[in-house]
């Protein structure tokens, strides 16, 4: 069973790896519709863009020789994190493999960090500004990501075996934390400040071009999908105790992950960009409030 699960996880990972650019193409179309314009001519536009970047000449950024290596490493790690979340989704029934979940969170954090380090190695002042902003947000946000994902999955399982209003409330609250944390991690408006202020400081990817830029963007889209899938897994966790992951829950989880991805895209369309100090302050207040409530609920005894 274990070998079969691993094989299935690898199979689904290989298939799902092609999904993020397609979802991004759909998101661009939806955004265009909201903004009363046509948008890209096809849902496959992001794929075309990535392929186009892939055939450009390889230009190593000045004094950023390790950038290409770090971007590729970040991409590999993101692919592994996709495998990890697929594995969690397939094996989620009455218990959870905490080691894999922990590994997943470490991999997501590592992927973010490697991307930032890749930008910072170019020594471009704009890239450094963007990286600095991103680090500030990431440090704060990782707390929410860890707490949100662990709690929501744990409580999701407990809901089936030990239902109570308090458990449900805590589950929903932890889900809210996870949704916010994954949204912030996805680097969408209003939290796209690492690549923000295009009029002044072009941010983390200013020195990337051609193939490197292509791989960076693909890695970024893949990370977004991993986070969406994580949310979908957390939402579908209570159902895994009733229905088996395959053929029931897992396909629904995949569909849900696409819905979450697109929902995040719609939300981003309706918002402006925050400033780094405002973003940090807002997140801090939000996590402080919600985590305090979670601690209280835990203390009361769920």
């Amino acid at each position, binding site marked *: 069973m274990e070998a079969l699960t691993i094989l299935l996880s690898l199979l689904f990972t290989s298939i799902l790896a092609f999904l993020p650019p397609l979802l991004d193409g759909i998101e661009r179309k939806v955004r265009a519709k909201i*903004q009363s314009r046509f948008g890209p001519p096809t849902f496959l536009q992001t794929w075309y863009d990535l392929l186009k970047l892939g055939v450009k000449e390889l230009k190593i950024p000045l004094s950023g020789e390790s950038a290409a290596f770090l971007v590729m490493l970040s991409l590999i790690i993101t692919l592994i994190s996709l495998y990890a979340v697929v594995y969690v989704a397939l094996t989620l029934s009455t218990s959870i493999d905490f080691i894999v979940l922990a590994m997943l969170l470490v991999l997501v954090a590592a992927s973010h960090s490697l991307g930032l380090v890749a930008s910072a190695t170019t020594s471009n002042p704009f890239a450094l500004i963007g990286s600095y902003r991103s680090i500030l947000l990431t440090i704060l946000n990782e707390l929410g990501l860890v707490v949100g994902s662990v709690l929501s999955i744990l409580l999701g399982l407990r809901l089936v075996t030990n239902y109570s209003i308090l458990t449900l409330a805590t589950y929903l609250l932890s889900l809210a934390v996870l949704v916010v944390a994954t949204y912030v991690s996805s680097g969408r408006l209003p939290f796209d*400040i690492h690549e923000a*202020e295009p009029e*002044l400081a072009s941010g983390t990817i200013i020195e990337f071009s051609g193939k490197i830029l292509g791989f960076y963007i693909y890695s970024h889209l893949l990370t977004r999908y991993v986070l969406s899938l994580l949310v979908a897994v957390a939402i579908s966790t209570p159902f895994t105790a009733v229905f088996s992951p395959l053929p029931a829950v897992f396909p629904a989880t995949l569909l849900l992950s696409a819905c979450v991805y697109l929902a995040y895209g719609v939300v981003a369309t309706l918002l402006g*960009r925050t*400033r780094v100090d405002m973003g940090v302050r807002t997140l801090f207040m939000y996590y402080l409030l919600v985590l305090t409530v979670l601690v209280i609920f835990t203390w009361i005894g769920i």
Partner: protein
Amino acid sequence: MSHDYSKLIDELSRGHRSRAILSKILEVCGDSVLDLSRRNIVIKIVIKAKCLRTALENIYKEHDLYLRTIAASDERSREGLFKLYYVFGIDSEGTNLVFEVPVAEGAKVDTISDLFRASDWYELEAHDLLGIEFNGRQMSRLVLPEDWPENLYPLRKEVSVEELKKMYQPQLISRVSELGVEEVVRIPVGPYHPALHEPEYFELYVRGEKVVDARYVGFMVHRGIEKLAESMKYDQVPFLAERICGICGFVHSTSYVQAVEDALGIEVPERAHFIRSIVLEVERIHSHLLWLGVALHLLGYDTGFMHAWRIREKVMVLAELLTGSRKTYGIDLVGGVKKDIDKDKIPRIKETLNVLRKEFKELVDVAMSVPQVKARLTGTGVLPRGEARAYSLVGPTVRGSGIARDVRKDYTYAAYHYVSFKVPVYTEGDNLARTLVRVDEVFESISIIEQLVDMMPGGPIKAERWEPQPMRLGIGAVEAPRGEVIHVVLTDLYGPYRWRVRAPTYQNLQAVPIMLKGVDLADAPLTIASIDPCFSCTDRAVIINLRSGSVKTLPIEVISRRVRGNG
């Protein structure tokens, strides 16, 4: 000058403010005043250079006095000297006070840049272009590039346009010989950032994410428009003037023709005034919508940007209905306009305005409800009222800092005295205040057009005939979307002898470093954009073919097509 000035002052004053100011000037500089005269709203004082500073020291603290422009002119062929025309406005009276200062060649004039901070750039420009020297200040290049030859002053009459065009070519030819190539393309590479639409250079000094100081360097693509006009006929210049700016060109052509009409005393038919006013307001609406879209884009709210420009499209269609063009309308003539507004267009105009009003209100309501938009506009880029007054700022920039300055009210022109409208003023002085001023102005402009369309009189649309006279001074000012545009014209027999253009951004840019101090780096682009800067650029490349000896100028896009092998 006679020492009994009271009768003279009574004759020339337009109100108690000009009386008080003239009294002070004559009291301290009576013997240095060579002539005093008044025509319409312009009081002209011809004063010796040695007493100019003394006169201005006595009046610079007047609260309703501001420096509108300074025009330097080479009149050596007529009177054997240069002249500086300092144009001040008395807002409360709608009076122009013009100090005409004769300057002998080689003579120096005392600076007034410590009294009227807005004069800083004008003095540098007069030095760059005409070689006039100023005492008591540091001189540096402003308008011309650092490597411009010494003692070559483009606006002096002995320097022709052809000479200026040829000036850099010998350098290019020698460079081409060095490279050993047959053809070379010289692309002007300036401080061009991918996200900036025009060449501009802001040097921001930051500590962490806070701006502690800022420096602006501009005039990257100075086109020599004022010099070009000196070789053109009167009715050719409006088309050149309209190309000063791609967004607000009509204000420049209107300002120019008004200056000529003022100088020559041309009676413009009422209907032409109404048509000019309508088109000016259409231009204001489109410009403000464009700006609002750009501001929302800078805040990351691209949905707002797209919808603002979608709504603006209706205004562009309206402009085409009225003038035949979406932009660069080409309808201004000295003495009137070229194109009439037919009665059958009126229902369509009103319908467009109704839709515009409704959709714009929805856009503003939604945009202001986005938390990030309001949070980032509020309290950022603050410009205190005192600084706004000291720098003689204009337009929404000054109205956002609590000063109700508007040329349409203070120095009314065209058909504005027939309509009723408010001048929006906000006192906070931040980016939000300047945004809300523009938002309110759009609604006011819609109302103004509706009133004008209802009241439009019949009759001709241009003066039947007019006679040019040499060396008459005329001032034309228009409230552009960005602020006051002011043109000063000295007439000649076939075209302008001297044409001085002052766009509002020239005045307002000088205050940007103040607005930027203490601002977060992330808010710097928005703060710069909040004055709605219009740098008006063009890129040109010069191609020299050594074999044939031909020299061509081509736009960059044509060159890029060539590089791709398409022609």
